[in-house]
């Protein structure tokens, strides 16, 4: 049984963190079921970077049509570049968008939002996110073929040091049905779904003009910024930063919630975080019950102090 991975790159052709995670995931499946791991990537600048996560073959597709996202064309390219029974994609915007197209092409069952390694492979059984993080659902696949999207930061990456056969391929692809007219990329920023650290703030910040310290704290931790629903609804921050039940679901190593009370709708999207730090002036804020570390205090004092302590730490430790 071969496992095919979609290894996602950014606009500069560098692998996203999800690429290493997806290959590690596929390697785990190969360990359970045997077979090869084939990573397919589009225009990667250093395709060999994936070797150490266990890819037996890395197919780098160089078609210029693949530089712009198209769910049906990306699915076509992935389907034609490699043959396998199981396909692993990241549960990112692009991975989740193309997955149904791929599943239909491969006549495969689709499971989205996996949060763990499969508990069985034939037939495939895996746990996935449900009720926007309020529940976990175990799903069994009918049949031999499956397309699986895996939540970023859920199982992590694992080095297994194998040699890869690296090939460059190009193919005849259809014309996309949707034309991209322009693109606006958030350069240099860590993606909130992939970030190890997410610094998030809520209404307690009192206004968008106070976000400077949130961004500074996030930069010091090499993290991403996020916000609660009311903050995005009031237009203080872009919708793309909204985490929670009706926003993005995230699972970073560290989630810092500043001035967010912790309503059930917010907790749903962030309770997969490995560690949660809550900073709130209200000792009765429900978020403290879901936190690992809590600081009761005025965020306008605590956050600048935390920034100062972090700077001190960085200076002492290089």
């Amino acid at each position, binding site marked *: 049984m071969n496992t095919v991975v979609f290894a996602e790159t950014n606009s500069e052709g560098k692998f996203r963190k999800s690429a290493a995670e997806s290959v590690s995931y596929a390697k785990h499946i190969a360990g359970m079921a045997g077979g090869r791991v084939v990573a397919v990537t589009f225009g990667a600048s250093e395709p060999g970077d994936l070797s150490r996560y266990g890819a037996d073959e890395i197919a780098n597709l160089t078609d210029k049509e693949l530089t712009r996202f198209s769910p049906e064309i990306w699915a076509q390219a992935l389907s034609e570049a490699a043959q396998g029974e199981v396909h692993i994609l990241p549960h990112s915007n692009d991975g989740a968008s193309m997955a149904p197209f791929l599943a239909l092409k491969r006549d495969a069952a689709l499971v989205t939002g996996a949060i763990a390694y499969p508990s069985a492979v034939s037939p495939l059984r895996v746990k996935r996110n449900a009720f926007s993080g309020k529940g976990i659902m175990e799903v069994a696949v009918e049949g031999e073929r499956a397309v699986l999207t895996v939540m970023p930061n859920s199982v992590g990456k694992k080095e297994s040091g194998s040699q890869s056969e690296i090939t460059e391929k190009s193919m005849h692809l259809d014309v996309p049905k949707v034309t991209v007219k322009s693109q606006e990329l958030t350069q240099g920023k860590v993606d909130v779904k992939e970030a190890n650290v997410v610094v998030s703030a809520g209404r307690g910040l009192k206004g968008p003009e106070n976000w400077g310290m949130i961004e500074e704290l996030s930069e010091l931790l090499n993290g991403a910024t996020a916000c609660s629903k009311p903050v995005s609804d009031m237009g203080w921050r872009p919708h793309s930063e909204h985490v929670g039940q009706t926003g993005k679901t995230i699972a970073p190593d560290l989630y810092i919630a500043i001035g967010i009370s912790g309503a059930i709708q917010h907790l749903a999207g962030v309770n997969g975080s490995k560690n949660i730090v809550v900073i709130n002036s209200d000792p009765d804020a429900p978020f403290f019950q879901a936190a690992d570390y809590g600081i009761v205090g005025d965020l306008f004092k605590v956050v600048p102090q935390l920034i100062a302590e*972090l700077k001190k730490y960085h200076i002492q430790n290089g």
Partner: protein
Amino acid sequence: MNVLVCISQVPDTTAKIEFTDGNRAFDTTGISFVINPYDEFGLTRAIWLQERQGARITAVTVGDASVEPSLRKALALGADDAIRIDAEPRDSYQVANELAALVEAGKYDLVITGKESIDYNGGAVPGFLAAMLNWPFVNGCIQLEIEGRKASAQREIDGGREVVGFPLPAVIAGQKGLVEERDLKIPSMRGIVMARKKPLTVKEPLGTQAKTQAEGFERPASKSAVTLIDADRLDELIKCLHEEVKVI
């Protein structure tokens, strides 16, 4: 222009989720249900197309009679008619296949859905539907304009956003931005009365088989007690971030 709006009935966002039947089913006891928030953005955008560009709206859902209140609400908000496909939804493939048959038998120019439902979070019905119909697909849509047979839209992609163009018919999967939270309406009294007279048709399903099976549910592990750190001793937090959380 005929617009098909696909809606899903989901637990209210404030609902506490419990499981029953030996953790094999979602416990609906005491749960109040709403139109899936992502679908409500789509429905609201469709109503604008109706008000401003004379579109005709059909709301559809796949489910048993218990999901009809959400269709009635869609009618009260402005949908012209509603269809319930009488099948128990089991997975995205099955639901999309039932919807695709409906679209192929009708004369729709645009299908609007939410980008995912907040209950099972598959996020795959819109993509499956577009793939089955072989129509253009815009996922994570945050803006939509229609002019004649041409459409332009904005979508969220990994690392940014894009402006895209495509011909109708097409499938759109919306999220916040397609309309804003403040644009969402509650049904008026007149709307509710009118809704009772609007047609709600029950259609027999094709009987598509699902490709996946739910085996069981669990609740996420709860956290142990919080460690409180004094606001004047943030050096202790830094120490934890370094030694225990290991992010610095």
